[in-house]
């Protein structure tokens, strides 16, 4: 085994961290906005283009 294996492991670890961070950000943000949008629609608030208005 190479003496430089720690550098390789650290590089792949950093890649995992960055990719996991980006995926988590995108997934959690999407989930939160989808919930928010559904809550607004359930409250009867519609976009003007969707043909509705505030209750």
């Amino acid at each position: 085994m190479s003496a430089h294996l720690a550098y390789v492991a650290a590089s792949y670890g950093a890649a995992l961290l960055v990719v996991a961070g980006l995926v988590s950000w995108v997934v959690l943000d999407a989930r939160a906005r989808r919930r928010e949008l559904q809550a607004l629609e359930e409250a009867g608030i519609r976009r003007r283009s969707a043909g509705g208005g505030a209750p």
Partner: protein
Amino acid sequence: MRERSLAIRSFTDLANPTRFVALAGRLLPWLASLTVLLFAIGLTLCFTTAADYQQGETVRIMYIHVPAAWLAMMGYTVMAASALGTLVWRHPLADVAAKCAAPIGAGFTALALVTGSLWGKPMWGTWWVWDARLTSFFILFLMYLGLIALNRAMDDAGRAAKVAAVLILVGFVNIPIIKFSVDWWNTLHQPASVLRLGGSAIDPEFRRPLLVMALAFTCLFFTLHLAAMRTEIWRRRIAAMRRQAARGAASA
């Protein structure tokens, strides 16, 4: 959500955010699956190919560092094309695309900087030097951070989009500087060895995993970008609905 039933008949239909959201919903599962598959193949190749006779195991850092660096520059190029879309064609999704590419591009730039440093220490004997390639790449990272901060600092999305678009286009001058810095100046960083005149200088044994990983990272970029754009459209829709509700409440 009812937009799933909207059909996309031509490319210009994508200018409609509702149609774009519907298309993104259909494409995302396929793109995400393709990304996972490419990473599975790429990572298998990364760890089954031989070590380099000079660099030893550290050559495996290349399979992450090089695609991350390419994607960092491609991300900025996507932003520059979007900035043109905002300023010239006033495309309704152009500033959404630019805004959403910035955090992803910043992530890839940070990864390229960190893995470059981790590769540099055993190969060059130093974590960092202020040579033209490394410095111009660090400037790219700062530009990404500046654009993210700018987008968050301004409440008016339309105004933020125009200011950001101008800055993105001005900053685009850094992309050819990064690419050709190793030719124009004397740098510790090696010259281009894959995308260069005269063909690739890398042995096919190392080029294969590198290209598969580059494809995997590219698919990851577009998957994340598409998902982030869809979320940004929802965010703007929520803001519009809240404004509409507030106006309705005020007039009641």
